[in-house]
């Protein structure tokens, strides 16, 4: 997957925030996923159409005790999972 492109949440995806994370729900497919706090932070950045590298920078500033490479790995794997489950899509041609 090309992580130099931006990603955004698909239409109608519902994010229900909790203290320690959030539920993601796609009413079209019925897919439901619980994401933890750092994943929620990542998802919220997606909604602002932030580039992946900027997201990693931002998360590193929030979780500076975690290795930056680890954050990058986690973000990329999280994005791949969200794409596979059709919660998000790459912003093609933009």
């Amino acid at each position: 997957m090309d992580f130099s492109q931006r990603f955004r949440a698909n239409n109608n995806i519902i994010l229900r925030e909790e203290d320690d994370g959030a539920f993601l729900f796609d009413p079209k497919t019925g897919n439901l996923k619980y994401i933890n706090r750092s994943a929620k932070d990542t998802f919220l950045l997606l909604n602002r159409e932030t580039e992946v590298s900027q997201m990693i920078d931002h998360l590193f500033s929030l979780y500076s005790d975690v290795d930056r490479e680890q954050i990058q790995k986690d973000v990329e794997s999280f994005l791949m999972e969200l794409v596979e489950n059709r919660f998000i899509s790459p912003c093609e041609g933009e």
Partner: protein
Amino acid sequence: MELTVKLAETNVTISLLGQAKKAIPLCNLYFRHFLHPDQKGDAEVVVSVLKKSNAGFPLREKAGSSIFEQLLPTEDVAAWLKKSPGYTEDFPISEKTISAFCLGGLLLFSPDTAAGRIYLLEEGPGCFKPLYRLLWMYFAQVLGERGGCFLHSAAVVKDEEGYLFMGDSGAGKSTFVKLCPEYEVLSDDGPIISRRDGEYRVYPSPYHQMDFERGLDKEVIQMSARVKGLYFLIKDDRVSLERISKKEAFSMILKRYIHFFPYLSAQAKSALFDHFFEVCYELPTYYLHFRRDQDVWKAIIGK
């Protein structure tokens, strides 16, 4: 030929056409406690028999296994229907129409109007086999549009309050209700949950595993109760209650315990998402470990 069925606060009319009229005695049997004198309900489903004689029925076959039920691409279903001998375009199909196959039948559902169309695709005496389940699927869609659903659970009313005991097939729901002889059982497999006047209520439904001949008592048919708590059943060698997080309860309900959830419209799924989120955060949620020879109510009421 028509009959109207009352489900929670919703009346649904079933109209049987042509050969399908032969299913009237079956429908009268299935829904005998739920028949309503009104000629027209809030929603209507029309049932007829259609020859599945032309090829290209849009079912995604799986090698080595027969398909029990499946959501179908409506566009492909519409194209297939147009080629079917005897098909009349009496049901408007749009991109919003939901199409589903079950056993040997086809259900079309329009979320905007709550209208349904069932085609029984096999001719002969066996053609009515899928009707019971197809009607269930249709009722689930009608209720879904109103924010209600059938829940994989047993519903027991004690002191005018409803207790829901959730479980997959084989989890022990029918066994469990036998432990409650002094209380009213609304269903041991698919009671209806609906929001009314700001509270969540449970209603009886014609869908249950209980002795079909015996059916439900007349008093039970008229009953509904405010939901008091949700209990996820676990067969065990002792009785105990174990707290379950709201998140876990909510995830399990949405993923496993709403009958026909994948077949509902996006609007219905959204409404149920909101409702069960609220339910799980307002009501107590537990795992209930139970065994058939021990009193479970002491543990439930003790909490």
